[in-house]
């Protein structure tokens, strides 16, 4: 596969005083990819984005856009678009003037500006609002103006810094789908910074998980969910996870305080954690056809709508088990019930600590 990379970061380091905000980050972002930088606050994701934009200068390393080294190119000469966390719409301009700003800076003809603004307003579904002042718009509409303003200049890469953070849940869910559609339509690389895994999982082709300035893992949503490269990623992604620490005895066998657990084969050795997602764990009075079986007591049950969450105590360890399906309601276990939980060996994964 001959990949074209829109953005490449090579060994980027950025320090603020004694704090290393970005610590030797290497990323290759493919052309027309929806790429997310995901991590808890303070993990360096926003700084990384600002380095790509040229708003922050790296202390070490190289930034490339379409193969060209732009490390020393000022922001206004990089062909990027950016949507800011608080949008940063110009308050003294109306919707049209805001969107036309970048085109005017590029000395585009008046008629052409009018045509392109009209076209982009159609894409973001804001037709007819050209003359509104930005403070007369709803949060969702302002969001679209910010997006249109950044997209109308046809940037080589669009950078988005937690743009949906300020919106309420319903509009946010709607905008997630919309953003993905717009990205498909305009065929541009989107680099999206967020601390919200739902946003990242919903929209991204690939996600980079960051922590303490370092990239922990880069992969598709499926890969990072089912094959986390360490315990941080395993517990950061997904609603919940079961992690049991132990020692690798041989390929696919881990000795833990609960006994030996059979896992997907892995080359990892030494001290590890066994990871099993709550929905992969089965629960019943009597279980068959599982490779790992434990007897336990139900501690609590929570009805979560589409599934039931059990907390099961096994020799002092709490397991989280998610059971889907309405039929489960009739066969529900209750706190204090003795149950068996278990899973097949390829449902559990050996994860380095």
């Amino acid at each position, binding site marked *: 596969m001959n990949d074209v990379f829109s953005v490449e970061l090579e060994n980027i380091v950025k320090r603020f005083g004694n704090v290393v905000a970005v610590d030797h980050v290497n990323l290759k972002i493919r052309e027309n990819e929806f790429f997310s930088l995901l991590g808890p606050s303070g993990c360096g994701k926003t700084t990384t984005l600002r380095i790509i*934009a*040229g*708003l922050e200068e790296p202390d070490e390393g190289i930034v490339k856009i379409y193969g060209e080294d732009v490390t020393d190119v*000022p*922001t*206004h*000469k990089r062909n*990027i*678009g*950016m949507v*800011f966390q*608080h949008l*940063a*719409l*110009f*308050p*003294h301009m109306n919707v049209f003037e805001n969107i036309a*700003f*970048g085109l005017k*800076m*590029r000395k585009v003809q008046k008629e052409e500006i009018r045509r392109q603004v009209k076209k982009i307003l159609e894409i973001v579904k804001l037709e007819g609002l050209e003359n509104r002042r930005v403070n007369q718009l709803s949060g969702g509409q302002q969001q679209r103006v910010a997006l249109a*303003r*950044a997209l109308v*200049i046809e940037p080589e890469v669009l*950078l988005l810094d937690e743009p949906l953070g300020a919106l309420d849940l319903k509009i946010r869910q709607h905008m997630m789908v919309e953003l993905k559609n717009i990205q498909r339509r305009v065929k541009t690389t989107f680099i999206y910074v967020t601390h919200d895994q739902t946003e990242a999982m919903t929209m991204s082709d690939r996600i980079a998980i960051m922590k303490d300035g370092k990239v922990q893992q880069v992969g598709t949503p499926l890969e990072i969910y089912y094959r986390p490269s360490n315990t941080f990623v395993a517990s950061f992604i997904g609603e919940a996870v079961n992690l049991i620490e132990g020692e690798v005895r041989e390929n696919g066998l881990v000795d833990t305080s609960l006994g030996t657990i059979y896992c997907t084969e892995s080359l990892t050795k030494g001290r590890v954690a066994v990871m099993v997602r709550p929905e992969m764990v089965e629960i019943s009075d009597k279980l068959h056809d599982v490779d790992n079986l434990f007897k336990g007591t139900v501690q609590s049950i929570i009805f979560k709508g589409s599934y039931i969450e059990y907390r099961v105590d096994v020799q002092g360890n709490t397991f989280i088990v998610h059971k889907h399906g309405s039929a489960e309601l009739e066969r529900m276990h209750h706190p204090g019930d003795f149950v068996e939980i278990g899973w097949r060996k390829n449902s559990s994964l050996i994860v380095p600590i």
Partner: protein
Amino acid sequence: MAIWFYAPFFIVGLYSFDMININRQIVFTPSLVHYSRVLSWTGAMGIFLRSLYFAGVTVLLCLLIGYPVAYYISFKIKKYKDLFIILFIIPFWVSFLLRTYAMMSILDERSFLNTLLTSLGLIDSPIKIMYTDAAVILVMVYDYLVMMVLPLYANLEKLDKTLLEAASTLGAGPVRTFLKVTLPLSMPGILAGFLLVFIPTVGEFVIPELVGGPNNYMVGNLIYEFFMGARHWWIGSALSMLFIAFILSLVIAYVRKIGERGLAF
């Protein structure tokens, strides 16, 4: 309180409409005679225009000097911004009159500065600046500069710096970012500074009295003369009322322009 506040103003108003006080007998038959005399007096108009000109040039110079100062402190200084602002304000803690006298001693023909420059051979003869237009304007700029810098600084501090970053991501370099974003958004500060400098300087009478010559009279001096010199309180009052009306119209125009944001900046 309000009565005390407005009583002098009210009395001046009565005088301007020809109230006469003879031997403690108040005779008041409202008349516009003093207004018509003032308005048809071209000499007064000339002095009024000169006041506008002096105040206008002063505002412009304050803006040209004050904007870079406010911009620099707000944008370029990262630490101890307040310290810089206080350092800038400290000279203005000294009484206005003292500052003006200090300036006089610098501008004077026999001043230390002039003596130094001539003795160094940098100038042939002492710079003659006292008792000229330049002296009046220079001292007014010095005395009122702080009134321009503070509202500008307050305004620039409030300006969301990510707007400037947004402009740069859209392809605007530093110059165009300044012209298209920073400057338009600092208009409230410029307008506030304009009012705070223009209003006191257009009515200024101490500075032209002290550093100006016979040709640098301003409206304030004229009104002063009518009250304290010629003792013609009626013309003085009519002049004052017209002047207040002019200032009031400026303030109303300002409030309209700023709209609901009000006088606060």
